[in-house]
């Protein structure tokens, strides 16, 4: 089995939502193989549908001053923050029935766990709280949606995230837990690139797929219907 992997660079949240929606439809119709999108978002707070507004501490004016927007997303989970220095991964994968979701969730956690362990961080799962944790501080968040047996949204790993932005919210609605990043834990500015390549490698291992890179611009255009789907995506 193969899984395309595309690096999209920095992409705004709304475009990523639109892109995912289209790719999920194409995946569900078997027009595309499984794929993993890797990207960064500009500063943004996003909320799932079960959002408790008391978990957003900032007022509208304060958000404008900080240059952060609030987005309503169709993923599972509570409020969170995305921004530069955070590696976001959106796997568009056909997992089949809902009974598969729990294994998929665990595999996603496994990818993140292996990745941070590759950097010497002994992170772990926290039973009852999906994601990747270092003690009681969250290093990697997970939130997803499965429609027609295909996943979207995914994970956000704090590599060199400016953690101040998390002060404006109660991340995931968990008041008694904190947030951390690889850079903070290692005491140095970790660039995104080595983390990205570890994520790709670990993703391939955990999901037992061959990761096949394709240019980010290409998948953007395919997702927006600007260019037709290349049959070669399935080859190899």
């Amino acid at each position, binding site marked *: 089995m193969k899984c395309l992997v595309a690096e999209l660079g920095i992409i705004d949240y709304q475009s990523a939502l639109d892109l995912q929606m289209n790719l999920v439809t194409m995946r569900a119709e078997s027009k595309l193989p499984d794929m993993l999108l890797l990207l960064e978002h500009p500063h943004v707070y996003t909320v799932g*549908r*079960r959002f408790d507004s008391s978990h957003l501490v900032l007022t509208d004016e304060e958000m404008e001053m900080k240059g952060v927007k609030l987005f309503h997303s169709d993923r*599972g989970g509570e409020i969170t923050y995305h921004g530069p220095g955070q590696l976001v991964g959106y796997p568009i994968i056909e997992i089949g*029935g*809902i009974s598969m979701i729990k294994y998929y969730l*665990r595999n996603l956690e496994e990818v993140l766990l292996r990745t941070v362990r590759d950097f010497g961080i002994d992170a772990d799962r926290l039973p009852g709280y*999906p994601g990747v944790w270092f003690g009681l501080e969250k290093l990697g968040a997970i939130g997803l949606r499965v429609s027609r047996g295909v996943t979207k949204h995914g994970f956000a790993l704090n590599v060199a995230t400016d953690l101040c932005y998390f002060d404006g919210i109660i991340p995931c609605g968990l008041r008694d837990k904190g947030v951390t990043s690889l850079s903070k834990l290692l005491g140095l500015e970790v660039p995104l690139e080595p983390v990205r390549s570890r994520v790709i490698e670990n993703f391939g291992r955990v999901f037992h797929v061959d990761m096949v890179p394709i240019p980010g611009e290409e998948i953007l255009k395919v997702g927006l219907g600007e260019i037709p789907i290349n049959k070669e995506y399935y080859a190899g």
Partner: protein
Amino acid sequence: MTVALTMPRLGETVTEGTILKWLKNEGDFVDKDENIVEISTAKVETEIPSPVSGRVAKIVAPEDETVPVGAELALIDETTTETGPAPAVGFVSPIVRKLAREHNVDLSQVTGTGSGGRITKQDVQRYLDMQKAAAPGAPKPPMAQAPPISLAPMPSAEVPLGERIVPMNILRREIAQHMVRSRHTSAHVTGIVEVDMTNVVKQRDKIKEAFKKREGFSLTFLPFVAKATVDALIHFPMVNARIIDEHNMALHDYVNLGIAVSVENGLIVPVIKHAEEMNLLGLAHHIHELAEKTRAGKLTLDEVTGSTFTITNPGSFGSLIQTPIINQPNVAILSLEGIQKRPIVIDEAIAIRSMVYMPLSYDHRLIDGAMATQFLNRIKEDLETWDFSPDLASVL
């Protein structure tokens, strides 16, 4: 029949879920696999497809309500379909009518599965089969599922002379259940290779005395075989796997090696966790310690669970060949038989070599004969060629 739609488990440690939105109302018809409700758990949102076709009889959990995993969300009445009950009997083809007349079938009792609920020849045949099966004394149709396994002794009117009835102890009863369950679960096949152990015997003989003196116990052949097996498992992950359900298997990046240890009136399989991280000496120590603990009855639950593969060692009792039963949920088990000196043809000469048979029982659901044989041959090659001295350097 009314079927309950329940809250699925969307994460292994997730215990509850929330109803986001009902896509169907009470009274609506829903097709099998058509989405009926959107739910959300801590991290996942998804639609749930209906398990059956029918009418939504009752919505038990309203929107925004959070309910535990397994709780009823709605009841779906399977007996009604969108087309509704056909008015009396609609159009019926002459062939069907003839079939019905021949067998005295009241067509209004037959459920139609053709287009628009039309009764087909197959429907009549199915109805007849059902009637036949339901008739007293009629042979029952073959059961789709294996019958439940009962190990309860057959009640006998009297005990024959010379036969005694004694209860089995708990261990025996558990082994009995496990063995039968394994036979019913896995598609057992056994493949056998013959291994020339002369290489291992020589290396072990050289170090036997020093090892005993230094480590305080005897170095058996089992750690050598364990080491080669772990190597083969790393190269053949499918043999080190577990079947989760009809769609999925779990592959392991580690080897938790179960070692069958015989105890009085039974068999226990303690587990060496992360055997892939151990050299020969480490394996020897773990095997020895776990066997001691097993016989002393001092194993913890953690030490008997989580195996990914098992080795059994009937050779220590002088066995020539056995076909072991897989230790669930493993997909294969290796048997180390008794080592014998046998005349073997090497090139054009006959030599006396220390030979052993190694049967592997494997689950054909996951492993084919080709892979099983390659796996066995990897173990064989390792044992016949490996130099173990680096692993034993500290002893010499």
